[in-house]
């Protein structure tokens, strides 16, 4: 009997998948035309997108960048043989105003520098992948670029030389010693560069000085308040005990800030005047105003919100009730009401002549408002933690603050990231509400720009430009939060 069994002795060559399931066609079949109803939906969506774009692009693509007024724009559009077109001349003429408001033109390097330094200060907090050397190099670079715009003088040249030297030195290290070698050196006890967070702490006081100007001694004296508190705690805690020293350490800086900062700063300034030209709050406007309010409120409301969330869960009755009362009151009141309080009531209550800065008032209100929301978001994160985590912390013998810092908060905050970031995005967009109390943020300015005879009647171009500016910021925040979630993901999916 002849053996008919057949065993293949070599592998068949791989074949391409059928044309209908691969490449562009396959992708389209799978994603766009998968069945009759999906095909219809796809075609309808395409028709809709075409309809929108066919109206939008001819309007958008309009050669009116040089138009000097709405009527000129219309003439240009008519000459180009189009029926209607955007009038971009308004953006061309007014974009610096939408960005900076009435901030004096020759001083605009200051907000620019503050904005650039903000990223240098935020990078060590926001990202973990950047090395200390890189961060200090970045700082020197930003400062060096700033010195090029400031003016001239021998002091400036000295500063430039120093900055270039610093850049060359750190840059040389970055190029010659790679990360792994450096890590070995550090393990071996090599001296590290100072932590960039020092600059972040400095920036908190540097930013108001750059934006508002005035004597440098005012922010330095303000910063000294923290040293006063720390000193009071260190000196008094052996004498009157921890709690008493803590209370004094809180009260002493407040007294320092309320009564002594002014005279001390003025005194030192009289001896050694280092000043920037002061800029009053009413010259702040446009995106500069939105970013100032937004960034400060965001930075302050996160710690405040965490404290409130912890306070709400506290066993101390007074702390708990105060936190609950604050959160519920603030959340029960619209932001616009708080802004009106900031703008009107405080004005009427305080004696005339007291100058409690309007932007500061608005920042305080925006901060309190978002802190209440952050508190609830963080409380959600705390509630999502299994009770075992709290018990495990207790079992390890950690005290309350250590347990929060090492075990509870890292997990609770990680859970709350999407909520926190949406609160921040909301806060940033809410800054446009200040136009109602007469501050000229981008929306308020768009109204003022329309009051110019040349630009009266222009709506979409201005709103579109402002929307784009806000989108850049909110979209970056949203992408960052997704990056952070990915980075902090510890489960195995």
């Amino acid at each position, binding site marked *: 009997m002849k053996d008919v069994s057949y065993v293949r002795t070599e592998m068949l060559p791989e074949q391409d998948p059928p044309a209908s399931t691969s490449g562009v066609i396959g992708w389209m079949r799978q994603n766009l035309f998968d069945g009759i109803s999906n095909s219809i939906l796809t075609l309808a969506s395409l028709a809709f997108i075409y309809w929108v774009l066919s109206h939008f692009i001819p309007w958008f693509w309009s050669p009116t960048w040089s138009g000097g007024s*709405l009527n000129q724009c219309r003439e240009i559009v008519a000459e180009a043989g189009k029926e209607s077109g955007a009038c971009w001349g308004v953006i061309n003429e007014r974009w610096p105003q939408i960005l900076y408001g009435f901030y004096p033109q020759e001083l605009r390097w200051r907000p620019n520098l503050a904005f650039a330094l903000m990223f240098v200060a935020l990078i060590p907090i926001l990202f973990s992948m950047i090395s200390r050397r890189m961060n200090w190099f970045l700082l020197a670079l930003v400062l060096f670029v700033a010195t090029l715009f400031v003016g001239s003088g021998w002091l400036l040249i000295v500063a430039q030389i120093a900055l270039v030297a610093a850049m060359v030195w750190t840059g040389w290290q970055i190029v010659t010693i790679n990360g792994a070698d450096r890590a070995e050196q550090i393990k071996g006890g090599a001296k590290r560069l100072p932590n960039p967070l020092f600059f972040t702490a400095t920036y908190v006081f540097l930013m108001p000085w750059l934006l508002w100007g005035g004597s440098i001694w005012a922010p330095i004296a303000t910063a000294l308040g923290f040293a006063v508190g720390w000193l009071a705690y260190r000196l008094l805690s052996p004498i009157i005990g921890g709690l008493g020293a803590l209370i004094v350490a809180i009260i002493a800086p407040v007294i320092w800030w309320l009564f002594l900062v002014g005279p001390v700063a003025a005194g030192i300034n009289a001896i050694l005047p280092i000043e920037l030209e002061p800029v009053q709050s009413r010259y702040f406007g446009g995106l500069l105003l939105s970013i100032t309010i937004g960034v400060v409120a965001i930075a302050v409301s996160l710690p405040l919100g965490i404290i409130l969330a912890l306070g709400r869960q506290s066993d101390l009755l007074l702390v708990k009730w105060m936190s609950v009362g604050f959160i519920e009151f603030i959340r029960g009141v619209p932001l616009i009401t708080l802004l009106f309080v900031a703008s009107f009531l405080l004005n009427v209550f305080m*004696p005339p002549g007291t100058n409690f800065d309007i932007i500061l008032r608005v920042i305080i209100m925006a901060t309190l408002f978002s802190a209440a929301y952050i508190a609830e978001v963080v409380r959600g994160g705390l509630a999502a933690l299994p009770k075992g985590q709290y018990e495990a912390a207790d079992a390890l013998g950690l005290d309350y603050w250590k347990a929060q810092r090492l075990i509870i908060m890292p997990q609770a905050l990680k859970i709350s990231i999407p909520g926190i970031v949406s609160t921040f995005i909301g806060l940033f967009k809410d800054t446009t509400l200040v*136009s109602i109390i007469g*501050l*000229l943020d981008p929306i308020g300015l768009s109204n003022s720009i329309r009051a110019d*005879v040349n630009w009266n009647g222009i709506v979409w171009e201005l709103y579109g430009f402002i929307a784009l500016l806000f989108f850049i910021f909110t979209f970056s925040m949203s992408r960052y939060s997704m990056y952070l979630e990915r980075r902090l993901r510890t489960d195995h999916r």
Partner: protein
Amino acid sequence: MKKSVILGALTVAGLAAGAASAATLDDVKARGKLNCGVSTGLVGFAAPDANGEWDGFDVGVCRAVAAATLGDPTAVEFVPTTGKTRFTALASGEIDMLARNTTWTFTRDVDLKFEFVGVNYYDGQGFMVPKELGVSSAKELDGATVCIQTGTTTELNLADFFRANNMSYEPVPIETNAEAQQQYLAGACDVYTTDASGLAATRATFEDPSAHVVLPEIVSKEPLGPLVRHGDQEWGDLVRWTLNALISAEELGITSANIEELSAGTDNPEINRILGTEGNLGEMLGLDAEWAKRAIMAGGNYGELFAKNIGESTPIGLARGLNAQWKDGGILYSPPFR
């Protein structure tokens, strides 16, 4: 002891408050700047240009007062105010005067404790309709849909007018003038109603202004003028007579072009008194003799300000109408400088 310190501080604060409201002129002089409340933006009346310099008809009044008191028409801090913030800003002392198309009404003058120093623009509420609607009088508007800004006196005037003429209408509430323009052009309403000056400014921005007409009926009185706080009569006098100086200057033919020539001395004693070559009017106000001269030179007399900012040669193209001098058929009538 502690209590007495607090009381003392309160007394000092109170005295300071009293002093601040009593002598605005001294405050302004000490500060070297006039804090003037203006609109956040109203076509022709107040608007910042690309460099942030404010310009407009109301702004001209601020500059004239600054020139009279401080000798410098640019020594003004313009504080943008909205319809909601303007009165608190003035009452709290944040601004020294308000020049922001504010209608002089009984309650604002008496109840809100302000002092209107005069009228710099006589406005009135009007109606604008598309020409194709074929309407020639506001009395033919029965059953029309009307775009109207909410929460303003215009809303109340509209209701009064339609009720008095036994007509019905359907309101389309809107928030800002820009929104109104869009709604009106999109055909969401047949009629747009607001102050006649605003209608003219809005119509001027349309692609085809001739397709729209402003109806002849004016249904309300809107005397717009600068105002100051109650209780400081000297400051009120100063602002009032600065405005009057601008108006009288036009009546007497004093312009920014011939003012130098006239201030050498003329045969007309009133001109001489205004320009300070005769009498001591400036001294009575607590200013020097040339206060009015500087005020007029700041932006020209009333007529020049009008022509430059909102007059017929501008895109807004307002006729003088009621705002002509009393000699020319208007109701602009400054008390004599004597």
